[in-house]
């Protein structure tokens, strides 16, 4: 028997709302199956189970808002195992509803099925108490859009207004404010930056992309991501967590990739084993994460597993970005906008594409010397793009 709990999906998450069950009592589940969707300040998050067994008891109804750590369901046949990874597990509590559940009669979806729905449509459906699994999406690849929800609402008989409140961007802003305030309050940041010549990297990338179809091309940000991950192998003290007054190093490198959401807000889900993935795989992972971050469908494990964060502002951002560490991580790396500037090269001065790479790191764990070595390694790796 193992407990499937409301996960902690952020440093300051206290509670979440159970909005969908993908299983029913008696269903068999296996590790990696998404069995529930939880609405948090960061939107609707798919929650996986990490044991194999049978759902013996569903303890929390759809619509209930419960504290982090609340047992949502019990899985039989998984003795001695936890239903979620340690990072997502939280203190165990008995089910305690902190907002009145709304009774919703709805069919369950086949285990593992993924519903494509925009966050705004999901919120509207929740507000209208509409079962999203009954809707037909007219968006890309069948994604359910706001218009689909509104059309379904018009087809329904008038009913009492729902008392449930959907998650909105102001809530996400509160979550960001809480996490970043805590970071600035508790973490003694130090900041470093390095200007990196991208002539070699962009020349290589141009050649790489030239004969490839659009879907197979990669963005400069992918090179940044891979270099940032590989450099952690040389400086592993930047990869891990600061917990209970000590640094906990992580052997695996799961970079959190910062994704800006439309209308405001930010999430940084993990790309697992970033250092081991090919550039093509990283591009696919990045594309997938960005889509799911904006349309809905991020998974709990993706929000709880980043060992360091990378943010890249792209071609419409500022020249320099200095990040704020996301607790309990101990470092964040930023890549500014690529700019062309006069640069001293062997033969004199030449126009060169440059990027400013910044590091914000936790002074409780490392010092500027180590941080400088890390940035130097990132710069070195970007001079040899063919080896990334």
């Amino acid at each position, binding site marked *: 028997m193992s407990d499937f709990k409301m996960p902690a999906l952020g440093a300051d998450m206290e509670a979440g709302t159970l909005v969908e069950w993908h299983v029913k009592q008696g269903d068999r589940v296996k590790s990696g199956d998404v069995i529930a969707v939880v609405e948090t300040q960061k939107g609707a998050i798919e929650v996986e189970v990490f044991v194999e067994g049978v759902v013996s008891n569903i303890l929390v109804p759809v619509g209930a808002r419960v504290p982090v750590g609340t047992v949502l369901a019990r899985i039989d046949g998984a003795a001695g195992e936890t239903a979620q990874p340690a990072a997502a597990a939280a203190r165990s509590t008995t089910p305690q509803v902190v907002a009145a559940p709304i009774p919703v009669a709805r069919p369950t979806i086949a285990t593992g099925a993924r519903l494509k729905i925009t966050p*705004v449509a999901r919120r509207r459906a929740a507000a209208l108490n509409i079962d999203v699994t009954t809707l037909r999406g007219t*968006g890309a690849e069948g994604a359910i859009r*706001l218009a689909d929800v509104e059309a379904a609402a018009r087809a329904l008989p008038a009913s009492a207004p729902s008392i449930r409140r959907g998650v909105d961007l102001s809530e996400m802003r509160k979550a960001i404010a809480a996490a970043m305030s805590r970071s600035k309050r508790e973490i003694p940041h130090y900041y470093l930056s390095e200007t990196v010549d991208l002539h070699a990297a962009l020349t290589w990338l141009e050649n790489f992309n*030239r004969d490839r179809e*659009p879907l197979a*091309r990669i963005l400069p940000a992918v090179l940044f991501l891979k270099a940032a991950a590989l450099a952690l192998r040389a400086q592993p003290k930047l990869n891990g967590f600061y917990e209970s007054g000590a640094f906990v190093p992580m052997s695996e490198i799961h970079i959190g990739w910062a994704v800006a959401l439309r209308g405001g807000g930010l999430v940084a889900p993990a790309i697992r084993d970033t250092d081991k993935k090919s550039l093509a795989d990283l591009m696919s992972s990045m*594309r997938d994460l960005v889509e799911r971050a904006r349309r809905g469908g991020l998974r709990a494990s993706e929000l709880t597993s980043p060992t360091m964060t990378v943010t890249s502002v*792209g*071609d*419409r951002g500022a020249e320099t970005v200095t990040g704020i560490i996301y607790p309990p991580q101990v470092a964040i790396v930023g890549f500014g906008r690529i700019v062309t500037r006069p640069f001293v090269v062997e033969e004199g001065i030449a126009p060169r594409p440059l990027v400013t790479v910044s590091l914000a790191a936790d002074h409780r764990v490392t010092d500027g010397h180590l941080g400088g070595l890390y940035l130097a390694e990132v710069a070195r790796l970007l001079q040899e793009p063919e080896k990334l």
Partner: protein
Amino acid sequence: MTSDEIRSLLLQLISDIAPEADPSSVADDADIREAFDLDSMDFANLVVAIHKRTGVNIPEVDYRKLFTIGGAIAYVEKALGQPDSGG
């Protein structure tokens, strides 16, 4: 495809990428990256979608020609070998 059909397709593809936007309200000479808050990944996805729907393979060196609705329509039209809009 006519010019109007290409326009309609482009607006639909942009709408798929930026569902909250109203593409019909954007002038032909406006920078779509600014108007729809498209980042590098969004623009790359737009190029992929154009390729998928029309067969037009836009090289990176030409991306800047698609930064406006008008430019994108002209580019796709030319690539499809239809210099005249045909209404």
